Structures are given as structure tokens and as C-alpha cells.
């Protein structure tokens, strides 16, 4: 313990109480005393005592009852029972109730000292354990990213190595694996960390809009361009630009991007001024860019520009050992947000989480935990609070009606993609307009998602 322990003496005999108090004060402890169990409980409610020296036989509330109640108020307090009538029975009972040890009155002078030293060492050990556990947890956390699996530990090591450089990084992985968190971690641990981190979801914007978003435009560049607007490249100057869903950009934008990466300069749409920027590019995709190159949908030269260093984020199904850690972290996060007391995950529920294949990856896990905390009212997330069954790992029992099935599925995809229409349309393999039509048809609202 970094400080001297605070000791409370509880004994109905004033001579015992006072002589022990004087003795312990010579050791420099903060000591106070109570003449009964009732007074001790009031003092325990007012202040945290590290050690309570508690007489076993007292009129009114006896030592065992006082022990139980003090432990309820302050579970961390260590109790040393004192008795003039030592019997194995009473000692065993006191220890069963959670006493640290017992002393027979009068004590040998070194006996009480040894016991207090033992408690201090024990408490130090508890603190050390907490610190070690915290350290271990920190090892499994990289900023907001969580993972103890070998695959994620490799990702953390890679982030460590690439963050301080200015290299372009291509982050690949399925939807929902946390690619943007990786990008934020790289930026946050780089020398650019105090400069802007600008993210652009390339797949969410139509080609022309993406161009004006990235490069900005001059007044009158196109109809509706009433004043000059800075693009994301300018905003990210001296910082980091994160281009998400890079596999979805058009061939024209690919050419513009390639030019910027090569020359580190560009012009706003409708402008002639050449703007130089110092931007670190991080890009991410859930697409197979090599296949896209083969199919002539992605430029090979741009791929090699972006893919200086690549980080692949494994899907959750390939790192199931991270599920308990992730689930616990999400429970803690949402309990805090929802102002709930800490909720545990029942073993049966955890088994279901481990058995499921997680097509929506970490994002889906997060959503399911949040949902379970909203639905469940108990102190534990039970298997029933989870929306998939044990038998087939499939979502909730499927509706019989095809229409209903379609509406449930669209809702799920919109939920998983956080209402990203382009992404949802791609996952559903329909065009954006069709998706809009279906959203209208089934009356799906952004709020409910």
C-alpha cells in the first residue's frame, strides 16, 4: 500500500480499545475506535477503513454480525477478529464469514504487527494483480481496437511500425472489421496526430460529388457552386486523409487521385491555381483489388501507389478468441452510455456468440450487444436476449412471408452498414434507386435503424 493503512478498532472494553489504539498510533497508523458494532457500522459508512480489528464478543451486535455488515458496506476492508475466548469453532466461523485472521487477547506485541504486515502485503498483492490485469488489457487494446488473437496482435505491431512513417497504407478487410479504427490508430500514433484526420467514404458518394468533395471547387465551377469550397485534400493538409471504400471509385477519380499521389498537388474544380498539400494517405477497401485490376475496374499503378504497406484486418470468425474481450468491452461501453449497472454475459449467451459466424463482423457484434442490453432487463445477458438461435447460427426465426423476409433482411443490412445506402445496395446486390424504392415500400426509417 502506498499509504499507511487506516485502522478501526471495535471493542466494548475501553481499556482494550484505548491501549490498542495507542500501540498502533506509535506505528503511525491512522487509528480510530468504536465501542460497539452499531457505532462501527456508522463509522464504516462514513469512511473506508483498510483494516478493522473487531472484538468477537460484544453486547448488542456481536463480532460476527458486525463483520458481515462491515463487509457489505466495505468489501475491501480486511477484518482481524479479536477474542479472549479462542475456540476453533468461533475462529473458523469468523474466517468463513470473511475475516482475514484472528488474534487471542492479550496479544504478543509482535503478533498484531505481523498480522497487519500480512494484510498490507495481501492488499499490495491485490493492487498488483489489478495493475497487471490492466496492463494485460492494455496489451489487448490499441486505442479503440481490441484483440488478443495472434492475428490482431500482428496488426497492432504493424500499426506501431507504420504509424511514425509517412507511408501510404492500404487497409483491407471485410465490412465491419474496424478498418477506420485502424486508420485512426495510425494517425493517432503518428507525428501528424495533432493535425486533422479527414475521412471520406468514397463509396457513399456519386462520382461527381466525390470529385468536388476531394478537390474542392471554385465559384461557378458548376451550376450551384455559388462560392469557393475547400476539398478534403486541402482540409487534411499536414494531417491524414482516409479514403474509405477506395475500391468503389470511378476510373476517372482514380486518375485524379494517382496524379495527386505522384505530384502532391492539384487544382480545385473550375480553378487553375495549383495547390500543394502535405497529406498522408490511408486507404481502405473490403473489395479484392487484385481481382478488380484483372477485370480492369481498378488501375494497377494506383493500387501499387496505395499498397505501399498493407494491413489486413481479419474477419471476426477467424479470431473468435477475441469475442469475449470484445463483447465485454461493448457491454461496459453501453452500460456506461445507458447508465446501467455492470451487466455480465451468461455462459450460454457467450457460447452462442462464439458459435455464430459474424458476417457483419465486429460492428454486428457491437450492435447485438447494444440490442441485448436494451432488451434484457436483468444483471446478465442471457441466450434469449440474442437474436440468433443455437441450432444453425442463423438470425431470428425467419418470417414465412417473402415480403416480410425481404423487409427484415433490408433492415438488417441497413443496420449493419449504418444506413450507408451505397454500401447496403452493394451488399444486397441491387442498385441504389431500387433500395430507395424498397425503403419507401416497407416504410423503413433511419431512426429505427
Amino acid at each position, binding site marked *: 500500500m502506498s499509504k499507511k493503512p487506516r485502522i478501526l478498532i471495535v471493542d466494548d472494553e475501553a*481499556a*482494550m480499545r484505548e*491501549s*490498542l489504539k495507542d500501540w498502533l*498510533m*506509535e506505528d503511525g497508523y491512522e487509528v480510530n475506535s468504536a465501542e460497539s458494532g452499531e457505532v462501527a457500522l456508522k463509522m464504516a459508512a462514513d469512511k473506508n477503513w483498510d483494516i478493522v480489528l473487531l472484538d468477537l464478543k460484544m453486547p448488542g451486535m456481536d463480532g460476527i454480525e458486525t463483520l458481515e455488515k462491515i463487509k457489505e458496506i466495505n468489501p475491501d476492508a480486511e477484518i482481524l477478529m479479536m477474542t479472549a475466548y479462542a475456540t476453533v469453532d468461533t475462529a473458523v466461523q469468523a474466517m468463513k464469514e470473511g475475516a482475514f485472521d484472528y488474534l487471542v*487477547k*492479550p496479544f504478543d*506485541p*509482535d503478533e498484531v504487527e505481523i498480522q497487519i504486515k500480512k494484510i498490507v502485503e495481501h492488499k499490495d498483492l491485490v493492487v498488483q494483480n489489478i495493475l497487471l490485469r490492466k496492463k494485460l488489457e492494455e496489451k489487448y487494446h490499441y486505442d479503440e481496437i481490441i484483440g488478443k488473437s495472434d492475428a490482431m496482435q500482428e496488426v497492432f505491431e504493424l500499426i506501431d511500425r507504420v504509424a511514425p512513417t509517412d507511408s501510404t497504407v492500404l487497409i483491407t478487410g471485410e465490412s465491419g472489421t474496424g478498418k477506420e479504427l485502424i486508420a485512426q490508430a495510425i494517425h493517432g500514433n503518428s507525428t501528424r496526430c495533432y493535425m486533422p484526420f479527414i475521412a471520406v467514404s468514397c463509396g457513399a458518394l456519386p462520382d461527381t460529388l466525390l470529385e468536388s468533395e476531394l478537390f474542392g471547387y471554385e465559384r461557378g465551377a458548376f451550376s450551384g457552386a455559388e462560392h469557393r469550397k475547400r476539398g478534403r485534400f486541402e482540409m487534411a493538409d499536414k494531417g491524414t486523409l482516409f479514403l474509405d471504400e477506395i475500391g468503389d471509385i470511378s476510373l476517372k477519380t482514380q486518375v485524379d487521385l494517382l496524379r495527386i499521389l505522384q505530384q502532391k498537388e492539384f487544382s480545385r474544380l473550375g480553378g487553375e491555381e495549383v495547390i500543394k498539400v502535405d497529406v498522408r494517405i490511408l486507404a481502405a477497401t473490403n473489395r479484392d483489388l487484385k481481382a478488380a485490376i484483372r477485370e480492369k475496374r481498378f488501375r494497377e499503378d494506383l493500387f501499387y501507389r496505395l499498397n505501399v504497406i498493407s494491413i489486413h484486418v481479419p474477419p471476426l470468425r477467424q479470431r473468435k478468441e477475441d469475442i469475449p474481450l470484445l463483447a465485454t468491452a461493448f457491454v461496459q461501453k453501453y452500460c456506461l452510455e445507458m447508465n446501467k449497472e455492470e451487466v455480465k454475459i451468461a455462459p450460454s449467451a457467450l457460447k452462442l456468440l462464439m458459435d455464430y459466424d459474424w458476417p457483419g463482423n465486429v460492428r454486428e457484434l457491437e450492435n447485438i450487444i447494444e440490442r441485448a442490453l436494451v432488451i434484457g432487463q436483468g444483471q446478465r445477458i442471457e441466450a434469449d436476449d440474442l437474436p440468433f438461435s443455437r441450432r444453425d447460427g442463423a438470425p431470428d426465426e425467419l418470417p414465412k412471408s417473402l415480403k416480410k423476409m425481404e423487409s427484415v433482411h433490408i433492415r438488417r443490412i441497413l443496420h449493419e452498414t449504418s444506413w450507408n445506402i451505397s454500401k447496403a445496395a452493394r451488399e444486397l446486390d441491387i442498385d441504389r434507386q431500387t433500395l430507395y424504392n424498397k425503403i419507401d415500400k416497407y416504410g423503413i426509417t433511419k431512426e429505427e435503424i
Partner: protein
Amino acid sequence: MTACVTICPIGTVEDEIVGPISRCIEEKCGLTCRLSQRMESPEYAYDKGRAQYNSKLILRRLINELPKNSIKFMGVTRVDLFVPILKYVFGVAQMQGPCSVISTHRLSPEFYEEAPNQDLFLERVQKTALHELGHCFGLTHCRDRHCIMYSSTRIEDTDLKKMDFCPSCRGLFNWYLDQAREDSQA
């Protein structure tokens, strides 16, 4: 007024014991010591059940007899002392108060069935006196096993420590002493 410690023999205490205590306090603390009148044997403090003497009662008697011109008042007795919660004590003191009492009973090698050794016995007496005086000035126990303020729960602890304060306890002692001197002059 010069800072003075008064030593009070309680019951039968040989002069050969009181003298070395005075010399030790004068040498280690820079305080003048004087000898007070002998107090009666502390039969009032005898506990039949324990066949020992309650040090708290002796301390109370000392407080009542506190000499006016002393900053500290130390009783020395041959009887075996206890405090209610402990089986025995070598001495007790009022923390940052004027009075203390030490017992020579458990300091002689003979008590531990060892050959008589007067030098060792006197050394233990001096160490115990210095330790209790430290408490009277406000010093608590020290972690340094060699410091005089290290807690002596067994005679081995007393034998192991040196007859002096460690540097930090020395600094604190001097500070407390200055405070006591200022208070006594006020």
C-alpha cells in the same frame, strides 16, 4: 528555561541504571537530565489475574506528578509492565506528550535464561529509554531496523538496533525538540 528531562525511579531501581539513562539522553538528545524523588512501588497498578503491572495506571500517576520545570518526565521501574491488549511491553509513552515509563524487567539477559551481562542490560535500558522519549517528542516507529525508533516487540529487535536515530528520525526529533523548546519558553 533549559529543556530538561526528569527521570523518576519507581519502586526499587538501582542508581547504576538511572545514571546511564541520563547520560545517554544528554549525549544523544542534547537535553539536560535530572533525577526526581523516588516514587513508591506501583502496587496500585498490580493486576492479580496477569501477575503484572498496568503501565497505563503508572503513566496516569506520572501525569499527576509532572514536575513543573521539565519538558519530559520518564518513570523507570523493575516491575513487569503490560497494556490491556498486549501480553507485555518494554515501555509505554504518551505520543507527543510529557510522560513515559520503561521497565527493566524483560531487559536483563537472565530473563531469557542467558548468562548475566550488565553491559548488555544497560545498553537495552538506554535504548528503551531513548525509544520512548522519541515517542514523547512525537516520533512514530521507523522502518529502519537499525534506527532507535524501530518497533521493539522482541528483545532481539532491541539488540539489533543502534543507540541512535536514523538521519530522518534525527531530523524530525530535532524539529520536534525545537518546537518543545519554543513552547516551554512561551
